């Protein structure tokens, strides 16, 4: 993966904003829902993101519009939360290590599907966003780093820990399907 300084030097054909909206809207909406956990707040957040992005579009170079727009969305979300001051951030060091009990075996992979995505909602926000953007939306780690404003190494560690938390959550959620004696 090329570092940012090299990637940004590549001349890009700048797409039309309308076309970017058409392509990126579902990703923005799903990301907003993962941040707000609420349909109407998510819609409002995406509406404001599109407005801010449209205003900034003339000065944007056109490279990586997906991570650029997610960055605007996330900054707007953080600004709103700061104003509301009602949801203190969970310090990442305070998140308990996922249990090793019933490491994988409790999961009946035939019934997982949507459960995986639902289980994502229980992860602390920083882990949830890393996993959602990389593993659900398919952004590269560099794009996620750009969107979240953190180094790529931070994305890697949040992604790996987030997947482990997700696994533990799935085992807890779906553990009833475990064969007898699966838990120690």
């Amino acid at each position: 993966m090329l570092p940012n300084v090299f990637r940004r030097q590549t001349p890009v054909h700048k797409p039309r904003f309308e076309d970017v909206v058409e392509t990126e809207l579902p990703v923005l909406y799903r990301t907003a829902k993962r941040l707000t956990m609420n349909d109407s707040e998510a819609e409002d957040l995406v509406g404001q993101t599109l407005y801010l992005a449209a205003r900034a579009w003339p000065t944007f170079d056109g490279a990586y519009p997906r991570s650029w727009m997610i960055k605007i969305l996330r900054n707007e979300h953080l600004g709103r939360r700061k104003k509301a001051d009602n949801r203190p951030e969970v310090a990442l060091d305070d998140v308990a290590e996922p249990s090793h009990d019933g490491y994988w075996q409790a999961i009946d992979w035939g019934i997982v599907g949507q459960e995986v995505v639902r289980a994502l909602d229980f992860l602390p926000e920083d882990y949830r966003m890393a996993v959602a953007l990389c593993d659900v939306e398919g952004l590269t780690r560099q794009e996620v780093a750009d969107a979240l404003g953190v180094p790529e190494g931070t994305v890697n560690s949040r992604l790996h820990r987030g997947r482990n938390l997700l696994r533990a959550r799935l085992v807890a959620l779906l553990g009833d399907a475990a064969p007898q004696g699966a838990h120690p």
Partner: protein
Amino acid sequence: MSHHDIEGPPCSHMEHMLHDAADGTGRGLRLWYALHHAARCGRCGRFLSRLRETLSAMRQAKPEPEADAMARLKAGRWRDEMSAEE
């Protein structure tokens, strides 16, 4: 190898390499080493195959947003900003 032997966390020194092997970002010697190890170590082999299944489930379970919300957002006030630019 007993059931118990493959159910548990992977070897700790392999974990990052296995994540990269599972999601396709692993390359070259690191990828080769991860796959080689996973083929011979029950826990790491299980970890890799379960992680691949989880990742594949997540990709496929991407929910389609509600059509009405999409339509409202496509017609939102950002359009005024764009026409002001023209």
